[in-house]
């Protein structure tokens, strides 16, 4: 089955539109979606009781707690601060106090829809991608606005933003822009000077000398900062969402996110996700791994063995890549209770029921924050509190982690999600 370009464009737009509608209705089902099966062999080397850390403590933030809007398009942890981009405003959450400060257009925010955030660790400046409004720098309380009319930004529809040394990269619907904050020079990357068959850039990230663009229809493009050369990662199967030859390359050229960490490149597409270690590719399909869905909006790698995926049906975490262990976090739309399902090679190992998990199953943004994680959904922001977090696997560890979390939560802790 081949998906035509117009259909895919609608799906892409659907990512954002659905975020706006999700609190009213369940997200649309994809034709490619299949229920997670349980048939797969457990790797012999890893006993079934070797389990990954499971996030059982969640705190939710919505307009009720002070967010400007519940449709969370971007989240970025910055020390004790967490920056939150919404459909109608920017917010900054103080982890220590739970206090939220919000900015809307009336407060100087140049554009209401904030779709991307990155923080320049050196200067402390917060860079915002604005959906239709260009770029903004938030520095010391001042918003500086860069758009396609007053600057060299190639397009105002900005999906992603990333800091690379003195450069700010913006992934836009008409190519990528690079702005050097010292020289003031803007550089545009399109089909003219980059291997972009399509110029619709969905994401941009930076790690260790390389910039990674996720491009609708052009896969993941790696830019070597030192040599200024591009290296494309494309789907060897072409535009087929069917993976004809397994693990031969990127799952699909419609890439929504790319996150490089340690030696691994984690990639999300609308037709599944994948990981590349510089030599080997590995594709992740929902029906084979237990990830909630193939329709993946975003990705964040925590390490070379742990990758987090924001999907339209929940949060999927490849919690231990070597053992093919996955944790899928979802929320029951009826009971509103949370659930973490642990899989190994697609087989359910365990189901953990919790009072709460992700605030909504339609997830478009996430960030890792030390032991914690922040999940931006169509109905608020979720804070996954990682007290006692450990990487990899431990014997019977999820129970210990859960108990440690309970013990660590102080009375009335705003993060605990409940009063004691």
């Amino acid at each position, binding site marked *: 089955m081949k998906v035509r370009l117009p259909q895919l464009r609608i799906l892409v737009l659907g990512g954002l539109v659905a975020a706006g509608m999700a609190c009213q209705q369940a997200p649309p089902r994809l034709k490619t979606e299949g229920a997670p099966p349980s048939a797969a062999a457990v790797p012999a080397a890893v006993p079934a009781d070797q389990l990954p850390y499971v996030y059982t403590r969640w705190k939710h933030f919505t307009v009720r707690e002070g967010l400007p809007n519940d449709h969370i398009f971007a989240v970025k942890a910055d020390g004790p601060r967490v920056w939150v981009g919404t459909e109608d405003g920017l917010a900054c959450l103080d982890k220590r106090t739970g206090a939220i400060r919000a900015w809307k257009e009336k407060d100087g925010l140049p554009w209401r829809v904030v779709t991307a955030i990155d923080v320049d660790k050196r200067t402390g*400046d917060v860079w915002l991608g604005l959906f239709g409004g260009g770029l903004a720098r938030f*520095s010391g309380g001042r918003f*500086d606005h860069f758009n*396609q009319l007053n600057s060299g930004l190639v397009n105002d529809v900005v999906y992603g933003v990333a800091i690379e040394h003195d450069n700010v990269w913006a992934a836009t619907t008409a190519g990528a822009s690079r702005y050097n904050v*010292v020289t*003031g020079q803007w550089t545009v990357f399109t089909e003219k*000077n980059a291997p972009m068959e399509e110029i619709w850039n969905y994401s941009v990230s930076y790690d260790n000398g390389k910039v990674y663009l996720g491009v609708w229809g052009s896969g993941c493009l790696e830019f070597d900062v030192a040599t200024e050369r591009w290296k494309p990662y494309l789907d060897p199967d072409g535009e087929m969402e069917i993976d004809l030859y397994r693990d031969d390359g990127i799952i699909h050229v419609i890439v929504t996110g790319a996150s490089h960490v340690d030696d691994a490149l984690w990639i999300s597409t609308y037709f599944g996700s994948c990981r590349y270690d510089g030599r080997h590719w590995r594709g992740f399909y929902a029906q084979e791994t237990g990830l909630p869905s193939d329709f993946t909006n975003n990705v964040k790698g925590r390490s070379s063995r742990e990758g987090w995926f924001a999907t339209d049906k929940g949060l999927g975490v490849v919690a231990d890549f070597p053992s093919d262990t996955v944790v899928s976090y979802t929320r029951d739309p009826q009971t509103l209770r949370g659930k973490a399902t642990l899989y190994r090679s697609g087989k359910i190992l365990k189901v953990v029921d919790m009072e709460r998990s992700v605030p909504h199953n339609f997830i478009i943004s996430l960030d890792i924050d030390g032991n914690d994680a922040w999940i931006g959904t169509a109905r608020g922001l979720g804070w996954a509190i990682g007290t006692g977090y450990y990487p990899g696997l431990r014997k019977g560890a999820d129970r210990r982690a859960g108990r440690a979390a309970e013990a660590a939560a102080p009375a009335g802790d705003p993060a605990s999600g409940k009063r004691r």
Partner: protein
Amino acid sequence: MRFKAALLLRFLAALALPLPLLAGWLRGEEKERHPVFVGARVCASCHDGKAMGRQATCWCQSKHAKAYASLAAPEAGKIAVWSGIPQEPQEAAVCLGCHATGAEAEDWEKDDTFFLKDGVQCEKCHGAGSEYADERIMKDRDAAVRKGLEIPTLDDCLKCHKEKGSHTAVLKRPPVDVAAGMNLIAHRRPAGERAARPTLPEPPAANHPGSKYTGVMACAECHGAPAMGYQFSKWCVSKHAEAFAVLGTPAAVPIAATMGVQGDLQASIACLKCHTTAYHQPASGGLGSYSVYEGVGCEACHGAGSDYAREAVMKNRTRAAPAGLKKIDRETCLACHQDAHGKPFDHPTALKAIAHPTQAPEVVEGPRYKTPLNVAIRPDGKELYVACEAANSVIVVDAAARRQVAEIPVGGQPADVTFSPDGRRAYVSNRLDDSVSVIDVRARRVTATIHAGDEPHGVLTDRAGKTLYVLNTSDESISVVDAASLKEVKRLAAGRGPWSLALSPDGSRLCVTNQLSRFVKFRMPSMSEVTMVDVKSATVDHRIVVPGANLIQGVAWHPSGQYAIVTLLRTKNLVPMTRLLQGWTITNGLGIIWADGRVDQVLLDEPGQCFPDPTDVAVTPDGRLALVTSSSSDRVAVVDLPRLIGMLRQASQEERETVFPHHLGKAAEFVIKHIATRTSPRGLAIDPAGKTAYVASALDDSLTVIDVRTLEAVGRVDLGGPAAITKARFGERIFHSAKNTFHRQFSCHSCHPDGHIDGLTYDTMPDGIGVGPVDNRTLRGILDTAPFKWEGTNPSLQRQCGARLAVFFTRVQPFTPEEITALEEYICMIPRPPNRYRPVGAKLTEAQRRGKAIFERTRTNDGRVIPKEKRCMTCHFPPLYTDRLRHDVGTRMRLDEVGNFDTPHLNNIYDSAPYLHNGIADTLEEIWTRYNLEDKHGVTNDMTKDQLNELIEYLKTL
């Protein structure tokens, strides 16, 4: 038959070609190649000889051919000063733009046969010739034009020959009459003569074994620099350089006749023997760089140079002589000059005339002033360091003896100075050089130089001395420098025009002033920023807005840490400046920046007696007094801080926000004294004991010493400047004085700080509120860009600053003729800083190169010809990038009375935002994205975003 075969081949090939390519190919079109400069000698290969009216010969003797060399004349240096060019004229793009050909071209745009030092050559007027130089093309005028041949008109001559104030001022002669000049350089061909290539006989010794002639340009590579006494330029204007050309003049004919030589003298071996280099002495011919048109060049005397011309050989006499460098003696000259044409020859006199100086000519400079701008006191209180802008030095003053003890050379235009907390180092910002000099205090010398951003001003370290902060006033940033490695570790975004900074008493915060307002919406008042930096993280943690204020410069913390005090102006640029009569235009005061971010503003002006241009502030260690300099009224105001703060605390919030910032009657409540200083007090510092204050009196070359206890000026420390006051210095004092404005409200400096911009749009005419708003333009390098005003109605600076200024701005008696002449002279000499985006000699980046192609393009992206009047280069041609005419580029707005505006020059255009006549465009991009929707300001709407970005990258290099 052959024709048919060719057609058939084309047809077959056509089947394989895409349609658009096919169409062009069938028309026989070739891909358009970028023309490159080929040089006058290539043109001369056809354009000389009797049949061609000896055009090249005529050019050789013209001033055009000596235009480059003329830049070595002392007058050129003076003109450069009058043009605000702080560079060697032969290296300055603005000078070369008219005194050479292809000055804007990169190396790849010049053929090996082209030499910039040939001055104004054929291609200066006719365009780069590589594509039309072919004889077959040149004989078809239309074809040649299609290939880039330009047919200049008188208007084209005016691109360079339009009167320039700097040239008129120095040369004291009227501009060139271009109509008459056109006649002078007319390229006439004798009637009835049949064009034929000029031919020369073979040099008699062309096959002689040994060295070859390299030509004078090879020698000029080393022997042209100022350090070598401009030897090439001196030769260039000598008769030797014209020796071949004179053979083509009518005057040469009778002389030759006396020697029995007739016919074409330029083809006569007898004449060429002494009138050229190659026919002079035996050699094995000439390299490609040699041309007979050089006349008698270096090698005529020194011998063919191909084997000794290399610098390594030339510098080693034992190697140079065997390689062919001949020793010159009397006989060398006499070989040609003895009894030549019956002229007497005095060898010593002649030798003196062609002397080859080996050092730079002595420049007779006027008095060199010091212009102290800021002063810092060593932590132990024993010495003062004074940054002296005009002297490029820091002067060390013994605090006890109150006398200068040393002067330390630093970079260009030092602006601010500070000490490391241990007192071992001093840091000096060099505004012209974009650097910070690091001084070893004990050794009293510069030990390192740190590269900073554009035009660094304020400098200060943190309390531990580990981090140095440098305010880059022109690129709106703060350099954070690791004091150990002296490397910049990051750059923070400041406000616009960061100026001074002060460390809070607990060392945790830096308060940074910014002298330009943020960009505000059209016809809205200023919103300036005070930037707070968290020292621990070295990040900006707060930006405090000071509404209605601009030129926020000086800053000092109160010892309590509760607030910082800044100096500020409140410029009423939205109403006609003639409202000054009612107390409008500019008020001057202080801002109180509370630690929690609140702001109060109070005025230091009093009714009838303003306190113009408050520039710096210092607080006594006991927190009781603040001293504030007024640079244009030569006073220091003493502010009783408890009274000031008490007044604020007793007032309502509404009073503090809406009354005090405008109230001319409040200063009397907290200003307890005015202390007179010497001329133009700028920076000041109070010693750690709180007993003495030192004020840098910029235009008196001195420090004024103030006893803080008695509040009296008790001394003057002479910094060693010249006693004589030149006309320009007098003008500088006028520029920085408020004496010539009603109630002494402001000075020229108030709107043109340090000769540049304040970033505001003014309503300068009494034609209704808001009518005809105009952007304030820089004065840097302004003289040669006449006429002045956006309407282009003032032909001279004297007119601009004369009675008109009194009527519309100052509202007092106009300047006297003596004053206005001096003022003009000073304004002319305000230097234009070197371009930051393309240092002298630097190649263009790839993006800039592509931008240049856009700037010079003649066709749109889809191939349409852009009408000449819609091309960038038509109105913005080099070297000033203005045609100095008015044009309607579609920017007229509702409040404008006219639509034609003066074409602004583009030199250093990046540092004078906002743009367009009314300052409506905050950025260069907006000029075209927002305000050129109908392609009236050049054809730009076909451009892609990357093309516009690259165009802007190029514009920044101009």
